[in-house]
């Protein structure tokens, strides 16, 4: 018997647990040249802001051992242009749409949450953890009090499930996770990028024009797995796991740690087909281990107790 790989996440059904990570997949148009986007569990779009944003000056990317740093700085056409110009395009495909929003202020989050609530997007993801912008961004995500304020406010304006995306750049991820849960988050996603830096030793300049940027890719996988594992024990709401997933095995590891859905980001840069390969890899694992339903994996790590 073929294992079931569909997941019910906050009342929304996903045909499979693999989604794309915000900012690595644009609005889907480019990868639609490679495969049918309906094969994906869902698409999380590039981070949106109330107005169009130009983003940071280049260079915006640096390579690191098994990872990358980016400092795109939320270049995007603004939430309205997304709703009118991009969302209808994605909606042609039979897949879930997660709208990722980034604000500088609480009212900005509320305004975007409200607008998206009236659209065909399925889920709202609040990015309170972007390390690549000056105001707002990561600052919100690193202080439990601020997390509570911004999430409880946005919650009032959201008619869709509200996912809060956590920053790994914190001392105690569980404290932040609980603050988001208490404030009414329906789910959490983690991890956003880890703040990092590279310096070109020949020019003595940072490689990135913003000096520092966010680390993602395989290098961060063990940090992501650890945080999923910790947060799973700290909250009751479901989790989206991301950070370094490249293979079905990586995704299974993330699910055993506590993820209901998994997102694939940086790995698409090495191989555009990665999300589908990850989905296939999950299915093969289930078949090999005679597991009939992917949901059985969620949080099923058998931790050592002594």
């Amino acid at each position, binding site marked *: 018997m073929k294992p079931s790989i569909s997941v019910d996440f906050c009342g929304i059904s996903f045909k499979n647990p693999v989604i794309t990570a915000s900012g690595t997949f644009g609005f889907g148009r480019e990868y639609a*040249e490679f495969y049918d986007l309906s094969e994906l569990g869902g698409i999380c779009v590039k981070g949106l802001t109330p107005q169009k944003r130009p*983003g940071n000056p*280049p260079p915006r990317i640096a390579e690191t051992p098994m990872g*990358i740093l980016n400092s*795109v700085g939320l*270049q995007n056409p603004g939430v309205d242009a997304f709703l009118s110009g991009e969302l209808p395009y994605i909606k042609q495909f039979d897949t879930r749409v997660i709208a990722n929003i980034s604000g500088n202020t609480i009212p900005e989050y509320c305004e975007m949450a409200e607008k998206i609530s009236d659209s065909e997007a399925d889920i709202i993801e609040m990015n309170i953890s972007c390390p690549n912008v000056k105001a707002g961004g990561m600052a919100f995500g690193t202080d439990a009090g601020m997390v509570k304020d911004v999430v409880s406010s946005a919650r009032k304006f959201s008619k869709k499930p509200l996912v809060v995306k956590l920053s790994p750049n914190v001392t105690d991820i569980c404290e932040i996770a609980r603050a988001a849960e208490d404030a009414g988050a329906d789910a959490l996603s983690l991890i956003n990028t880890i703040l990092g830096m590279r310096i070109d030793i020949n020019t003595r300049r940072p490689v990135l024009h913003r000096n520092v940027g966010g680390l993602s890719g395989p290098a961060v996988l063990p940090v992501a797995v650890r945080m999923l594992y910790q947060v799973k024990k700290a909250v009751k709401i479901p989790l989206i796991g991301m950070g370094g997933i490249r293979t079905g095995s990586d995704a299974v590891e993330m699910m055993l740690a506590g993820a209901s859905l998994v997102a694939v980001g940086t790995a698409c*840069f090495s*191989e*555009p087909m990665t999300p589908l390969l990850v989905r296939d890899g999950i299915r093969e694992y289930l078949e090999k281990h005679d597991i009939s339903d992917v949901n059985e994996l969620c949080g099923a790590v058998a931790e050592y107790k002594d």
Partner: protein
Amino acid sequence: MVKDIKTRIREKTKLSDTAISIVFDMDSEITPGQFITVGCGAERILRRPLSVCDAVNGRVRVVFEARGEGTAWLASREPGEILNVLGPLGNGFRLQSDGLPALFIGGGIGAPPVLFSAKRFVDGGDAVIGFKSKKFVILEREFREAGKTVSVCTDDGSYGVKGFVTSEAERLLKKKRYGRVISCGPTLMLREIAKLAASYKVPCQVSLEERMGCGVGACLVCACKIKGKDGDEYRRVCKDGPVFDAGEVLF
């Protein structure tokens, strides 16, 4: 159609102390100026972008220099080994015939896509290619075989004309009416060429370089600043370029 293939290296040639030519199987419609990205070892996440230098009979050729770790890895591959190649990507040079000759300008390792353009362009023209010194000169014969006159410039005068490509280009622009300039090379060179072409009122296309993530237009890391209708904006070198009208680029 963009292809995502594993393909075998068929030929590998050293063109100079630093430049290497690799030919591999890839059957695609490719416009000069388009590029491919190639995986450079399991220990590196990012593919390296390389312009196509030629595409005939189901084979694609790239010419590159080993600059950092990734290209050094690539330079140490041998015929028979497998490469991960994605492409063709981006927009190439506009080469439609308008009856006027074109001026082809290539700086250093920017010469390969210019050669490909020269080969495909039907209205004739002249080429100027520049290098640091004699030992870096590549592709001269092939430009000639593409039916273009070629001036080779070297910074130190150790071969051909002494000086930068700009002076030689200006000499030609003064003499002849060109329909377009097709150019690729270091950013500083492109900026000068853009100014020059503008002052002679010749439309100029340049192929830009920027560090890339996805290479396909999805991640927005390969930003270059362009004069837009509604003000300046960042565009994607990989998808909106790498070829841009020189006039709209904010160097």
